[in-house]
């Protein structure tokens, strides 16, 4: 009988996994500062007034990247990697970002990517 129950549950799983009821549940996170404020108070010190970067601080230019590249990079930095367990491609910035987030300088990835792109991109 135990097996009957289990098979029954397997079928139930099938029903659920087949797509009913798993709507995206996104939570709107609250951030202390706007993307512009975060940029001006933190990012700017290394990535520059115009997003031109600073080789001395090993900060790459971010004024040539597409919005999609910016979004992927920011995801990598904040999530500590693009895969389930892969290392971040931005190990130093991943560390810095953790420190910044502790001080309240956190942001939504999409909002920050579009801020950087719309404010600084030079190829537009």
């Amino acid at each position: 009988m135990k097996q009957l129950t289990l098979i029954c549950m397997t079928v139930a799983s099938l029903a659920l996994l087949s797509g009913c009821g798993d709507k995206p549940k996104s939570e709107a996170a609250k951030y202390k500062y706007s993307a512009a404020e975060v940029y001006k108070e933190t990012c700017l010190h290394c990535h520059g007034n115009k997003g031109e970067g600073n080789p001395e601080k090993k900060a790459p230019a971010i004024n040539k990247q597409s919005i999609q590249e910016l979004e992927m990079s920011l995801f990598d930095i904040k999530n500590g990697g693009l895969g389930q367990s892969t290392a971040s491609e931005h190990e130093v910035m991943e560390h810095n970002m953790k420190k910044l987030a502790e001080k309240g300088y956190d942001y939504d990835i999409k909002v920050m990517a579009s801020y950087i792109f719309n404010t600084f991109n030079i190829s537009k």
Partner: protein
Amino acid sequence: MKSDKIIEEILGEIEKHEGALSRRDAMKLLAASPIAAGVLAGTATTTEAYASSDAKGKIVIVGGGLAGIATAAKLTNKLSNPDITIIEPNPHSVSYQPGQTLVAAGVWQKSDITYDTANFIPKGAKWIKEMVVSFDPANNKVKTQSGIEVAYDYLVVATGLVLDFASIKGLEGEIMSSASENEVVRKKVGKNGVYSIYFADGAVDTYKGIQELIAKAKAHTGSEKLQALFTDPATAIKCGGAPKKIMYIIHDLLTKAGVRDKVELTFCPSGDKMFGVPEYNDAIFEQFKKRGFKWEFKTNLVAIDTDKKVATFEYKWLEKGEYDEDLKEYTMIPMSKNIEKKYDFIHITPPQKAPDLIGKSPIGSSKGWVPVVKETLQHVTYKNVFAIGDVAALPMAKTGGSARKEYAVLVDNLIAVMEKKEKLPAAYDGYTVCPLITSLGTVMLAEFNWTAKPTPSFPLDPTQERWIWWLLKVYALKPMTIYGMLSGRA
């Protein structure tokens, strides 16, 4: 009826395994169960769903794996006048890759996961059995190996990714698809203690390799343990759970053979965590501790000497530098050094990349992967081009479970583009699922999305290892994928 086929397949799977229900009992149960009735009704409704769009245009799908065929099938269901061409050279492109772990475990045979693409090409779709060698999105055409130019109105890129064994010094070759040519790679991988479940033949070899390891452990007398290493590279990989699943399986088989104490199992990933979702990360740490696994973070396999059985890892760390007034923090200096490890058995998760011809083409990106808006799957530059599956530049989404969510989104959005609608109606939220095999008989069903939080489909603690998920993995997911997803219905 497709829904019957799914149930039929589940029954078939159950029958194959000892100790499960008899077919008659299972049938009785399925007939009596309101849940099963729900499944049948649910799939039946979609089976009867008729074309909902009269949009026209020639659609070319490059790549006929799970993602490409599921997309083709759903488009065929939804369009009243579908004009679909699939370009795919591999006759077994739809083979069931998630089963490779089970092949290595000896639960399944290779024949259990091999499927003929010919049986899954949707009715009416054209199949060109060739490889695409160039993309010309400005002129809306692609070119195949034999020089045929195929023009399109809409393009779906679903080529999958490349297993880049050659980027590890000491190994050779690349593998385009799990079921395609692999001779060069197999010169070094699949023998002599070096194994990889990332392709179907490799999984078959791994099963043999595990038996050899068990035999070696039984004969082993020294005080030093045999060393088994498990790698996880610095690139995005398909099925992020697999590098660990194979470790759990080997632990289980060694334990059953009574020789677990003779072998040390060490996980050597390039990253510094077990899983990108904190809840699952914690759960995996506990599972590792319980099993006596070792782990060394930030170690990336860069070279291997298969004769001497020595693997070289690049070990990375950050060192505290000067205080930075601007940052109001100490700067961090990235450091690295190579360390050598002897092994008796090593499971290699190869570095993975987009096919070179994609990366170098106008539809690719500097990192190779096809740049898409991650919610809509539409190409960032070419609005009549979409990408899906492993080749798309999407975070945390190189799994069959992701593709299963992506193709419905892609089809709705592509049809909207075909209908000249301005707004794309569907959005992917990054949902993916990793049925993490933690032993032969238990699975942790790790479901999550881009919020990096667990998103369980069931009212059960998702961090627990359960037999029910093992049943799901072994009996239900394959029929669901092969007969549900590949016909565009589940």
